[in-house]
């Protein structure tokens, strides 16, 4: 069994454990079963932030050291991060409809910043597809990976900057009012989603490495060798004279 499958199975097991804790945790008095959506929504949002943080760090490392591995990590982490961002947005909207009475709240700064973060990183992936040259692609994407990252802390603190319907910072604060069992369920799902992130990254970076090798082979096959236009002298005719 290869590394990807082992990681995939560990991720599946971790998710099942996380969902078990989510199923056992007490329900919110007002939200009822809709509370459980939070065990997917919150970890997805955190993992999206983590993915883009990894891209930010890998982009700086690419610019500083120019090792292809950093570019692969940056690209792969954006792909995975875009998936988690979409998941966070969708689960947020599914939760919002019964609880807030609307799928989308225009006054919610967290929703808006997360949606825009999603589009910027889609632009990152579009940028990569637009540039055939690997070094040029890596450098330009790295700059975008650094610039785009400032939306991440902005999205996180948006609930403080703007008066908004979205719940404020709850877990990471000294006087957190969160119930112990709910916190356990939430953190076990964050852990499980982190393993899912690692499993996705493992597969995605392997695909990126394969694509790189394919590009190199294709470039080598297309390249005309130096001196190809010069034909070998016909020595037999020379002997005949």
């Amino acid at each position, binding site marked *: 069994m290869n590394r990807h499958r082992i990681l995939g199975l560990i991720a599946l097991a971790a998710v099942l454990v996380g969902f078990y804790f989510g199923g056992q945790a007490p329900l919110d008095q007002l939200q009822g079963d809709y509370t459980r959506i939070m065990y997917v929504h919150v970890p997805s949002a955190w993992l999206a932030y983590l993915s883009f943080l990894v891209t930010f760090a890998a982009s700086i490392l690419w610019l500083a050291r120019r090792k292809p591995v950093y570019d692969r990590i940056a690209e792969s982490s954006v792909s995975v991060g875009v998936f988690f961002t979409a998941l966070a947005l969708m689960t947020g909207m599914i939760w919002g409809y019964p609880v807030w009475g609307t799928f989308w709240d225009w006054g919610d700064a967290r929703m808006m910043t997360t949606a*825009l973060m999603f589009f910027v990183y889609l632009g990152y992936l579009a940028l990569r597809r637009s540039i055939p040259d690997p070094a*040029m692609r890596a*450098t330009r994407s790295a700059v975008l990976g*650094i610039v785009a990252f400032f939306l991440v802390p902005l999205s996180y603190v948006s609930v403080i900057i703007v008066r908004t319907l979205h719940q404020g910072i709850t877990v990471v604060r000294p006087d957190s009012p969160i119930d112990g069992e709910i916190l356990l369920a939430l953190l076990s799902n964050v852990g499980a989603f982190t393993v899912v992130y690692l499993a996705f990254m493992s597969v995605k970076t392997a695909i990126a490495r394969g694509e790189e090798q394919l590009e190199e082979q294709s470039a080598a096959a297309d390249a005309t060798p130096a001196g190809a236009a010069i034909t070998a002298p016909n020595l037999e005719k020379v002997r005949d004279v």
Partner: protein
Amino acid sequence: MSGPSFWGQAYEIGLKDLRVEGRTGEVLNITIPFGAVALLLIPLAIGTDRPLIASIGPGMFWVVTLLFGMLVTFRQSATESSANREMMVLLGVDPAAQFAGRVVASVLLLLVFEGVLAPATIILYNPDPVEGWAILILVLLLMAVGLALIGTLASGITAGLRSRNTLAPLLVAPLALPLLVGASQTYEALAQKSSILTPILLLLAVVLGLAVVGVLTARFLEEASR
């Protein structure tokens, strides 16, 4: 014999951009009228409810500035070919100075853009007057600087690409969100006579952060454009 200093190079680059604008008149003759048309079309689309139009006026101004200001910031890179970029390298022009010069030229053009469209918004939308014009002028300046920085960065990232015309706006519009939030929140705070510190700090932080990233990454973007 040494060449011009960093700021001397930036000045020449900025002046070159402004000369190109002086010859083509793209911002003055096309982008500003285009923005004014957008300001005229919005009330037609939402109906003639005067209180509603007055309340959305400032927000519409910021949105039009953001969307059409992008065109102002992209205009300089659209006129630049790869031969131009090669020439800059051969002349030994500092990439950070090029970046700074372009940003300054874009800021000046954006201020002209805002200077024409702000009175047009007041006339067309008749928003409720607010106190603190000096702060609003500061916000206009910060918005112009921030937009110029993002636009110049996006121009560098997408320089020479076939998909540049569609890709650059896709990158700039979401990245300019903090500017939009900062500007609109400042206006709202002035209208409600509450503290403007947080949105102003947000605008300053974004501008400062983008300036640092822009200068530090200019060399890398120049390498990647050859």
